């Protein structure tokens, strides 16, 4: 109903108003904390309350001054590239591994203890080790994301395989399907929605982790940018960075959700 839609638009407005109030109050209490108005100007350009002329981080996101000074768009692109590299590698390794673990008790016995032990380790704990191995910021960030992403993918793929009803496998047996046919025609259709759930979880965590990882590795990327703005005392940019990270994370989740639904036979072709 339209009435419901109106509520969906108006109610968040109240919360937004409350947030602005809390923010303004914080700004009045904390020395040199940017006000909402100054932050807005820092984002979209203008003259701040202190009389500084601002170009606006979001008004000019594409500028490239030099290798170390690029607009926020390039920072985000750098982070996304790392996330998708690490995430892609994790899919390439995690899905087949998850299929094998799900299909073979022996593989499950072999791998499960390690998954249980490594899964709870914060990916950032790996970072120093990876930095030491690769001696390269990009490789370190990508491999950190790989370590982050792989566990939910393996676990959910395995779960998907376990969800294949024994009845379907009996059909496959009567028809004498080869192992490959079993995977393609029976297991994957059941497991794919689970795999996408795992991928969606992974991508969400990867986006959380990349910000922290880049703060540690430095160079380029939205995480490093936020940290750098802190060091430059540009506190308003931290807030802009946080909001941008939030929006991108939200978009990533939305897109993954749509892709997941597309591959889920239970949600496809439903009127």
């Amino acid at each position, binding site marked *: 109903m339209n009435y419901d839609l109106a509520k969906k638009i108006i109610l968040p407005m109240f919360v937004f108003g409350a947030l602005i109030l809390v923010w303004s109050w914080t700004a009045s209490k904390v020395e040199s904390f940017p006000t909402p108005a100054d932050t807005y100007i820092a984002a979209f350009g203008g003259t701040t309350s202190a009389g500084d002329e601002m170009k606006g981080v979001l008004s000019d996101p594409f500028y490239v001054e030099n290798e170390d000074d690029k607009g926020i768009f390039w920072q985000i692109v750098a982070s996304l590239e790392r996330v998708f590299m690490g995430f892609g590698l994790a899919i390439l390794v995690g899905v087949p591994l998850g299929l094998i673990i799900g299909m073979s008790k022996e593989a499950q016995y072999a791998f499960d203890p390690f998954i249980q032990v490594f899964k709870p380790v914060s990916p950032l704990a790996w970072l120093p080790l990876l930095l030491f191995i690769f001696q390269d910021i990009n490789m370190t960030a990508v491999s950190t994301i790989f370590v982050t992403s792989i566990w939910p993918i393996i676990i959910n793929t395995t779960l998907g395989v376990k969800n294949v*009803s024994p*009845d*379907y496998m*009996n*059909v496959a*047996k*009567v*028809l*004498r*399907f080869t192992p490959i*046919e079993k995977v393609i*025609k*029976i297991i994957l*259709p059941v497991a794919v929605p689970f795999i996408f759930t795992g991928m969606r979880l992974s991508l969400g965590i990867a986006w959380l982790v990349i910000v922290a990882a880049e703060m540690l590795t430095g160079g380029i990327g939205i995480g490093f940018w936020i940290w750098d703005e802190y060091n430059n005392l540009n506190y308003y940019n931290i807030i802009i960075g946080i909001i941008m990270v939030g929006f991108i994370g939200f978009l990533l989740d939305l897109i993954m959700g749509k892709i997941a639904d597309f591959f889920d*036979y*239970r949600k496809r*072709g439903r009127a």
Partner: protein
Amino acid sequence: MAEQRFLQLENIEKRFPIPGKEDYIAVTDVDLEIKQNEIISIIGHSGCGKSTLLNMISGLDAQTEGYIFLLGKEVKGPGPDRAVVFQNHSLLPWLSVYQNIEMAVKKVMPELSKKELKERVEKFITMVNLDHAKDKLPDEISGGMKQRVGIARALAIKPKVLLMDEPFGALDSLTRANLQEHLMRIQQNVQNTVIIITHDVDEAVLLSDRVIMMTNGPEATIGEILEVNLPRPRNRVELQHDPEYIRCREAILSFLYEKFAKEDE
């Protein structure tokens, strides 16, 4: 030379290992010969080992002792010569009615051309009167229709034996009657060897040439075998007063509820 026997069970026994205990002997001493194009039903109280027996014939489970021969060849493992209609239909929910049958035919008859494949799939869809539903997904059709697809899928791969484990057990009685009619009509047109598990006395008499009655487990075995000497086609309404039908019914009822009554049912 003696005529070759069709399907033969010799001295079958199935034991299930129970951790920390002695094996559970589900069925034992089963000897049975089934002729080509015969319709056999297996009846017995629940838990007596009917599914166990059928699973051994289908090869989905292996017997502990004994041999099963189909046309003189020992049966080892499942195969399309013994198609199974499962109680819960087991259609793949992401494939349409047509695709479910096509997948099976394609695998079992890879030599068919595209056109022949299509014709064969459609022929069997027509056989179970599902032309109007051929592009529907299993979740979009009724339980009875799903079971008909299951039957079409099983028959389309031209099995030597059709195995059915309580195929209509989950359906209401009207739908069940409807499916029994379907099965009899199909059988009238295309002769098949059918083994059907049931716990429904009327279903057993109506459909079968012989009814195998199983004793209760553990160590269940064949108690009696009843010949149903009723001509085909059979009409369920007319049969109600047929002396042979009544005799068969009584024989089964007496076996199940007098000789081998089960307390906890």
